[in-house]
Each structure stands twice: as C-alpha cells, then as structure tokens.
C-alpha cells in the first residue's frame, strides 16, 4: 500500500474501502456491452482497478449504463437503480445517454438520462474504448475523495422531481415511490 495514502485511510476508512471495491452491475443496453467482455477479462483486466461484475443489483454499487436507453429499458434501469444499496454510483457510457447521440430524433429513445436518474459521470465517445472505462473509474475515485459523486444523495433529496419526470414520460408507474415526499 502507498504510504502517502495512510492519512486518507485514517480520515475516512469507509470511503476508501468503497472506492477500491466497485461491484458493477452491467446494464446491457445498446452497443456498449460489446466493450465489456474484453475489459473484464484478461486483456484489460478490470480487477486491477477493483472492479468486479456481480450477479444482482442488490450487491452492486456501481451502475454502468452502456449505450442508448429506450423507453422500455428506462423502466428497468430505474427499478435496478432503486434496488441498489447506498452508496451507489452511476456512470453512463457513450454519447447516447448524454443527448441522444445518433438517435436524437428517434421516437423511442430517451434523450438525456439525467432527467430520470442521477448520473455521476459520463464517458463520451461512440463507442469509448476499454481504456476509457478505467480513466473514467480513476476519475470517479477523485470525485469520491472530493465528495462530488453524490448522485445517490441527490436522488434522495430531489426524489419528487425525478419521480415527476418519470411519471410525465410513462404516465402512471406500476411501483410505489421509493422515498416519501418531504413536503407531505
């Protein structure tokens, strides 16, 4: 272990433990999923960064959304995100979740993901290479150190707004709200 980091460890051990053990749920939307098999296996070996894929969202704390999000998958994404235990981080992958990308005029693809769930970081590109995932992850470490990766806190605070946006898109949702309204 790096001696310079001992101070950081002692200051906030929980945070340090969190950031070096990302358990990832790969949400296989769109074309980005093709970059995942090489990046978690021997060629790029994501495990040296502490990233390991897990089976269910209930054991995960990093959520990679790989590629465009259609309205049907957005429903599944919201439910998956709400199942994950806190602290949880979301990283959206490719240019499609940012503003629609090449699907900017599609009838069935949502244009910006952060209207519906909070996103901590974007990796731009179409498609980004596996190295970009690791650059993104090391950048996420810095954000966690600075307490700027606060997507889950924002989701808790502004849940009513996120819920309103989701309901405006889908009509009525068939699951109850995750948090109670603060105003009521």
């Amino acid at each position, binding site marked *: 272990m790096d001696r310079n980091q001992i101070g950081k460890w002692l200051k906030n051990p929980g945070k340090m433990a969190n950031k070096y053990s990302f358990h990832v749920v790969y949400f296989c939307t769109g074309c980005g999923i093709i970059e995942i098999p090489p990046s978690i296996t021997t060629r790029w070996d994501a495990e040296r960064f502490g990233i390991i894929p897990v089976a269910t969202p209930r054991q995960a704390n990093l959520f990679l959304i790989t590629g465009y999000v259609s309205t049907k998958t957005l429903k599944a994404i919201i439910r998956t995100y709400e199942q994950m235990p806190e602290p949880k981080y979301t990283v959206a992958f490719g240019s499609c979740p940012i503003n629609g990308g090449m699907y900017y005029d599609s009838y069935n693809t949502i244009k910006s993901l*952060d209207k519906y769930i909070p996103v901590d970081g974007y990796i731009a590109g179409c498609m980004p290479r596996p190295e970009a995932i690791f650059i993104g992850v090391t950048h996420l470490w810095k954000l966690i150190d600075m307490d700027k990766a606060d997507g889950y806190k924002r989701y808790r605070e502004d849940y009513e707004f996120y819920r309103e946006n989701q309901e405006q898109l889908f009509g009525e949702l068939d699951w109850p709200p995750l948090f109670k309204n603060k105003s009521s």
Partner: protein
Amino acid sequence: MEELKKNILSIFNDLEIYIRKDNRMFINTKKETVLSLLSYFKNSGYDHLGLISCNDWIDDSKFELVYILSAYMANDEEFQEKEKRIIIIKTRIPREKAKFITVIDIFENAEPYERELHEMFGIKFEGHPRLTPLFLELKYETPPFRKDFDTEKYVENKFGKIPTIKERKNNQKNERT
C-alpha cells in the same frame, strides 16, 4: 428457376414475375391470390417464411406487404438447389383503414411478424388471435413506422418538454414565492 416460373404462370393469372441474380424470384400479385400462392409454395417445398415486411408508399397511398420464402434443407432430393432460392411475394393494400388476412393458418411463425406490423404500421390482420403491443412501451397516435409520422416534432413534444431537475426545482421555488 425458369421451370418454376412456367409452372406458376400456368396455374395463376395476373402475376408479374421477374428473376434477379439467378436465384431470386420477385412476384407482384393482387391481394386475393396471396394466400393461394403461399400455400402453393409451401406444398412445393419452400416451407420457411423468413419475414413479413411492409413498405409505405405514401404517394400512391398504398402499403406493400412483402413475404419472403425460402426452403429448409427439405427431404427433397434437389434440396441443395432449392435451398439457395429466395422467393419474394409482394402485394399492395390500401393505406386507409389498412387490413389484410392473417396467414397463420399456412405459416404459424407469421404471428409475431403480424403483431409487429400491427404495432408499427397499424395494419389490422383479420383472424389474428392476439394483436396486442409487442415492442413499444409508450402509446403513439400514428404508428411510428408510417411515413407521415413526424419524428422530430414528436421528439420535441414528448422528450423536449420534460424539464431537467434544476428547472423543476426553480419552477417550484417560483411558485412558492
């Protein structure tokens, strides 16, 4: 291929047949003869319905249904020759209140294709057991694959009008004050 063409022309009337690339046969036909053509081909060894597709000819106000047939490795002796052949049957139906007869009785795997066409183009297939939504989550006034469906306008109205979280927060603040 030429033999097959002669055979078909001796049985059916009012067909336009042309052959491309030695192994593709295009048949333009009226909508009444589609079912009998399909069952004829099924009995003569082309027993695989690959796809039912649809074109929207908005200027002629017609839909063009396209049935693509090919042969599995049949127990026929000449399967090797048949296997490479592709038979494409085209028919035109009116665009307003579009409806057609289902072909499930002849090819069972037509069911999801017809459901898809019902959802994307709004063609009603008579005799289909369940024309329920297949892919789409949202409801659309005009089916989205029609040519008169304006995608950019739809995107502006549907997705563009959803505010960001910051805008929603500011709106609420303004309402309170």
